[in-house]
């Protein structure tokens, strides 16, 4: 964590030095100092837009995780449906979400709904596939044991396969948390009246590059906060899961 902060500080210094030496005009690349000033000057407006984007991300994450988990459970419980649903799942991912963003805006309007739909679509796939993979890969020995113990199919799914697949679901959710902001921002770019994506587009049109960077910085902080919070919650909820990337690095 401390090393990460030092590395980030080093990059900022490098950036400041580069701007200082090359004297590149601020509308092309503002110095970190200018970005910080813009951040303070526009704090109220940026905070308002950040709240909108944050709400879109969280709603998309919740909805996408719910739908993705439901899909994975359906695939695991309903053998006949697997043949029909699995191709659908793959096809859903073959359509680039960015390409249908204008359609979503057309159908769900310029408000939050279209951005939530966008984030949901992006999150659905990693959650569904990771959880489904986990459900399919229950230890066959454990399934045999459950059968000799006289467990029904439903009990095997709920009390063996699902808990055994929770670490896989957690990895899916981590990926989802990382891509969720993409959905919200792309949605805002296509058409919106609020949110950090809207603010960036607006600032870009007026050559307020420093505001763009400030919005980007806030977005990055939000994405990091989301990822770390989720990671911590998941590790507390599933203490037996194999350690995540970060804790591996620590050991």
């Amino acid at each position, binding site marked *: 964590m401390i090393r990460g902060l030092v590395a980030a500080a080093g990059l900022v210094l490098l950036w400041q030095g580069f701007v200082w030496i090359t004297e590149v005009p601020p509308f092309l690349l503002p110095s970190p100092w200018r970005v910080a000033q813009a951040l303070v000057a526009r704090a109220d407006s940026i905070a308002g837009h950040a709240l909108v984007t944050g709400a879109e991300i969280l709603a998309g994450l919740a909805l996408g995780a719910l739908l993705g988990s439901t899909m994975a459970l359906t695939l695991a419980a309903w053998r006949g449906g697997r043949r029909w649903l699995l191709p659908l799942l793959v096809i859903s991912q073959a359509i680039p979400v960015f390409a249908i963003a204008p359609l979503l805006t057309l159908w769900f309007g310029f408000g939050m709904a279209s951005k939530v739909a966008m984030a949901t679509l992006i999150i659905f796939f990693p959650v569904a596939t990771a959880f489904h993979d986990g459900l399919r890969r229950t*230890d066959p*020995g*454990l399934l*045999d*044991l*459950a*059968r*000799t*113990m*006289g*467990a029904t199919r439903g*009990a*095997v799914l709920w*009390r*063996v396969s699902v*808990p*055994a697949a*929770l670490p896989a679901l957690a990895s899916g959710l981590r990926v989802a948390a990382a891509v969720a902001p993409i959905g919200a921002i792309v949605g805002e770019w296509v058409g919106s009246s609020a949110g950090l994506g809207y603010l960036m587009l607006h600032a870009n049109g007026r050559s307020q590059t420093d505001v763009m960077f400030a919005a980007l910085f806030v977005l990055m902080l939000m994405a990091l906060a989301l990822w770390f919070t989720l990671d911590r919650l998941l590790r507390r909820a*599933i*203490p*037996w899961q194999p350690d995540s990337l970060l804790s591996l690095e620590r050991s």
Partner: protein
Amino acid sequence: MPAKGTVSALPANGPAIGRSPAPGFRIHLPQGFALGGEPVLAPCTLEAAAGHCTALLGPSGSGKTTLMRLAAGLLDLPQGATVEAGDGRPLAGRIAWMAQADLLVPWKDALGNVLLGAHLRGERPDRARARALLAEVGLSAADAGKPPAALSGGMRQRVALARTLMEDRPVVLMDEPFSAVDAPTRHRLQDLAARLLAGCTVLLVTHDPLEALRLADRILVLAGTPATPMEVAVPGGTPPRPAREPALLAAQAALLERLAEAA
């Protein structure tokens, strides 16, 4: 069946599981058995005597585990094949299964793992009996609350044994139950299993001639392709036989040679 909740279902010696006498069973395969078109077992009949331990040895791939899975009802029986209990009642629902891997679930502590069967069947868990069984296999009260990851391999296998006993079934199928632990631990676990499973009908699949000679009342070696079970003499005395007995060591040497031929 003992009344639910009676901790005293564990007398110091004699049957660990107080109940009507354990039935023997017979696996009859008049046409042998094939897995994926490949014949594994030749036409044969395997009998496990009531209340006794039958050990099944043989090289890898000789069909030991297949026979055990047939008895456990984990494989579909081929046409004409039967698995019948000596008392004429179905065997299903009267077996407990213990595998080479401990198969402890990581999301439950040792006690929760012993109670897994009740949890899966939606029954009320008999915690007092589970605790008594854990103590019986040598786990302290503190260990009972630990997750499997915090226990050693030997401890985990002890929990698996307690879970098998908790099922309270007259027929116990064990598939190389102690092959994943070190030799001294295995020795202790064999003594423990022999004591706690006395009176049960046990089918023990193993790679280890010494294990079979120590624990079994009857030893069958699977040999040939496709394999048939052949009986091998066991030394006298009641299991668990001490490992240092000369007769047992001589029998071990003979059995090893026999197995080497079979492979």
